[in-house]
C-alpha cells in the first residue's frame, strides 16, 4: 500500500472539509475561481474514493484500520490495554462500497450545480453546505466509533436542512426545513441516547469493542433498549415508513442536485442501520426478530411509497415518493438476508461456506446492497432531469407541462432511462438488482415477492403517465423552453451511462464490488472485531 492509499479514509473526510471551510474565502475572488476550486475538491474526493475502493477490492478483503493520532495510524490499542481509546476509521467491504456510491452522486450533483446555481444568490454558501454534506456522509460510512458516527450524522442533518431551506423565497421550502430539521434532530437524539446507554454499559465507544463485549457478555436489557433506539433513529433518518413523513418534503423542496445527494445521505443512515444489526448485534437470540422488523418496515415502505406516488402532481414529489419506495427494496433484500442468516446461525452452520454456495439469504443481501448503488444512480438521474425541466419551464406542476420533448430531447431521454431503471425494466440496472431480490424473497415467502413485483409495475405505470403528460403531446404555453445547457447534460449523461453499464454487465459488478460488501455483513463480523482487538 502506498502512502496515499493508507491515508485515503481520513482524507476522504478532510478534503471536503477543507473545501467547505475555504469555499467562502475563495468565493471572494469571483464565481469562476470558486467553481474551479469546488470542482477540483470534488474531483479529488471522488479520486480518493476510487483509490480507496480500488485498493480495498484488489486486496485480501480484510478490514483496514486508521487510528487518529497516537503512536501511528496502524496501532488501535495502546500497549497493555484491551480497549481502543482513540477514534478510528475502519474500512471493510461495505464501507468501501458506500463511499463509491457517495462519490458518484456527489460528483454528478456538484457539477450539475455549477450550471443550475449560476444565476442564483448565495452560491458560496450553497457549495460550502454541499461539501459539508458530502464530508458528513463519508464520515458516517467510514467511522468505527459510535459517538463519531453521531457527530457526522448531525453534520449531515444540519447541512441537509440548510440546503433544503436554501431557496428562502419558496414558502414550502421553509416549512419543509423546519419539519425535516425537527425530525432529523429527534432521530439524532435517539442515536445519541443509544450511544450513551452503550457507553454506560460497556465503558467504551468503539463499535468493534462494543460488538465483542456484546458477544462475550450476551445481550442485556440495556443493550436491547439501545438497539431499539438505534433502529428507530436510523430508520427515521433513512425515511422508512412509518417514519417517512420528512422524506418527500426534503427531496421535493431541496434544490434538485441536492435532492440527489440527500438520497446518498439516506443510504448512509441505512448503512448505519446495517452496521448496527450485523456487526454490533450480529449474534444473540433476537437476530430473526430484527430481520422480520426490517421486512415489515420494507413492505410498508414499498407499498406506501408507491401508493402515494400515484396521486402526486408535482414532478419532484413524485420522484421523492419513488425514492421512498426504493428504500423499501433495500430493506427487503437485507431483511430477508438477516432472517436467513439467523436461522443458519441457530443451526450452527458456517456462514462462509453458505456464501460461497450462494445461499438465497446471501443472494438477497447481494440484491439489496446492489440496489443501493443502482438506486443512487437512477434516482439521482431522475432528480437531475427534473431539475433541468423545472429550471427550463419554471413550474414543478406536471399538469402545466406538456410536449417538453420537442425542445428538450436529451433531458427527456435521460428522464425515461431513469424512470425505466427505477421501475426495473430489463436492460437497465434496476432490473438486475430487483431480480435478485424477487428471487430470494420468493424463497422466504412468496407474498413478499408478489408485493415487490406489483409495486414495481405500479411505479412503472406512474412514471410512464408522468412522462406522457410532461414530455409528450403538444407544447402548452411554454414557448421559451430551451434544452438544458451542456453543464447540466454532462452529469446526467454520466449517470445514464452508469445506469446502462450496470444494467448490461451486472455480473461483473456483482462479482467485484457487491459480493465483498455483502460478505462483509454476512460473515465479516469476526474480522471487523479482529482488526481492532487482534486475534479475531
Amino acid at each position: 500500500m502506498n502512502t496515499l492509499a493508507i491515508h485515503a479514509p481520513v482524507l476522504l473526510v478532510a478534503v471536503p472539509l477543507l473545501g467547505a471551510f475555504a469555499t467562502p474565502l475563495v468565493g471572494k475572488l469571483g464565481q469562476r475561481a470558486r467553481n474551479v476550486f469546488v470542482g477540483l475538491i470534488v474531483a479529488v474526493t471522488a479520486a480518493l474514493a476510487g483509490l480507496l475502493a480500488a485498493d480495498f477490492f484488489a486486496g485480501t478483503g480484510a478490514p483496514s484500520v486508521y487510528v487518529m493520532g497516537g503512536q501511528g495510524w496502524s496501532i488501535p490499542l495502546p500497549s497493555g490495554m484491551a480497549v481502543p481509546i482513540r477514534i478510528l476509521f475502519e474500512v471493510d467491504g461495505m464501507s468501501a462500497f458506500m463511499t463509491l456510491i457517495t462519490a458518484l452522486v456527489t460528483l454528478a450533483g456538484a457539477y450539475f450545480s455549477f450550471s443550475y446555481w449560476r444565476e442564483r444568490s448565495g452560491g458560496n454558501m450553497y457549495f460550502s453546505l454541499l461539501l459539508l454534506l458530502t464530508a458528513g456522509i463519508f464520515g458516517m460510512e467510514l467511522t468505527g466509533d459510535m459517538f463519531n458516527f453521531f457527530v457526522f450524522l448531525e453534520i449531515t442533518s444540519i447541512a441537509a436542512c440548510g440546503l433544503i431551506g436554501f431557496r428562502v423565497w419558496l414558502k414550502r421550502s421553509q416549512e419543509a426545513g423546519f419539519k425535516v430539521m425537527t425530525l432529523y434532530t429527534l432521530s439524532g437524539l435517539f442515536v445519541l441516547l443509544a450511544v450513551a446507554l452503550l457507553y454506560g454499559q460497556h465503558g467504551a465507544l468503539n463499535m468493534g469493542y462494543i460488538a465483542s463485549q456484546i458477544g462475550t457478555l450476551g445481550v442485556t436489557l440495556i443493550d436491547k433498549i439501545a438497539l431499539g433506539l438505534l433502529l428507530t433513529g436510523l430508520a427515521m433518518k433513512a425515511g422508512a415508513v412509518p417514519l417517512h413523513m420528512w422524506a418527500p418534503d426534503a427531496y421535493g423542496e431541496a434544490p434538485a442536485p441536492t435532492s440527489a445527494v440527500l438520497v446518498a445521505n439516506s443510504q448512509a443512515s441505512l448503512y448505519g442501520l446495517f452496521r448496527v444489526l450485523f456487526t454490533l448485534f450480529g449474534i444473540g437470540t433476537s437476530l430473526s426478530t430484527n430481520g422480520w422488523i426490517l421486512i415489515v418496515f420494507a413492505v410498508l415502505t414499498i407499498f406506501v411509497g408507491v401508493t402515494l406516488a400515484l396521486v402526486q402532481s408535482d414532478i419532484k414529489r413524485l420522484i421523492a415518493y419513488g425514492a421512498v419506495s426504493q428504500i423499501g427494496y433495500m430493506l427487503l433484500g437485507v431483511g430477508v438476508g438477516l432472517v436467513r442468516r439467523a436461522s443458519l446461525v441457530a443451526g450452527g452452520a458456517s456462514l462462509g461456506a453458505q456464501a460461497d454456495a450462494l445461499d438465497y439469504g446471501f443472494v438477497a443481501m447481494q440484491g439489496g446492497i446492489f440496489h443501493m448503488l443502482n438506486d443512487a444512480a437512477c434516482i439521482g438521474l431522475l432528480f437531475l432531469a427534473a431539475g433541468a425541466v423545472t429550471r427550463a419551464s419554471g413550474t414543478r406542476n406536471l399538469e402545466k407541462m406538456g410536449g417538453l420533448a420537442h425542445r428538450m430531447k436529451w433531458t427527456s431521454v435521460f428522464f425515461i432511462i431513469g424512470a425505466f431503471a427505477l421501475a426495473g425494466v430489463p436492460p437497465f440496472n434496476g432490473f438486475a438488482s430487483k431480480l435478485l431480490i424477487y428471487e430470494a424473497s420468493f424463497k422466504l415467502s412468496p407474498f413478499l415477492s408478489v408485493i415487490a413485483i406489483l409495486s414495481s409495475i405500479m411505479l412503472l405505470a406512474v412514471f410512464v403517465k408522468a412522462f406522457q403528460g410532461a414530455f409528450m403531446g403538444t407544447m402548452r404555453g411554454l414557448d421559451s423552453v430551451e434544452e438544458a445547457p451542456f453543464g447540466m447534460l454532462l452529469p446526467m449523461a454520466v449517470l445514464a451511462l452508469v445506469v446502462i453499464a450496470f444494467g448490461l454487465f451486472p455480473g461483473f459488478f456483482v462479482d467485484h464490488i457487491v459480493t465483498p460488501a455483502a460478505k462483509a455483513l454476512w460473515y465479516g463480523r469476526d474480522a471487523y472485531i479482529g482488526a481492532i482487538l487482534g486475534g479475531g
Partner: protein
Amino acid sequence: MNVGNFPFVIAALLVAFGLYALLFKRNLIKMVIGVSLVETGVNLFLVMLGYRAGGEAPIYTFANAGQKMVLPTPQALTLTSIVIGLATTALLLSFAVFVHRHYGTLDVRKIKELRG
C-alpha cells in the same frame, strides 16, 4: 448516601417532557423548546454516566493527592453534544422566523401546504 438510579429517572423524565412539548404543542417556538428539553435531558443523562462516587473533577492543577477522579470521556462527549444542540436550535429558530415571514403565523395547524 445511596441514591440508586434515581438521577437517571430524572433525565428520562426530562426527555419525556420534551417529547410531550414537541408532539402536542401547536406553536413552532414551543416545539423548539421541546427539542431543546430533549437535548438537555440526553446531555444530563450523558454527563451523569461519568460520575464516580466521591470523585472530583479530572484536572491535576492543584488537585488533592490520591483523590479519585470522575470519568473524563462523558464530559468531553457532553461538550460536543451541547455545541451540536446550540447549532440545531439556531437553525430551527431561523426556520421559524422564515415560516412566520411566509405564513404570518406560528401555529402548525395553519401551516400545512405540505400534506400528502
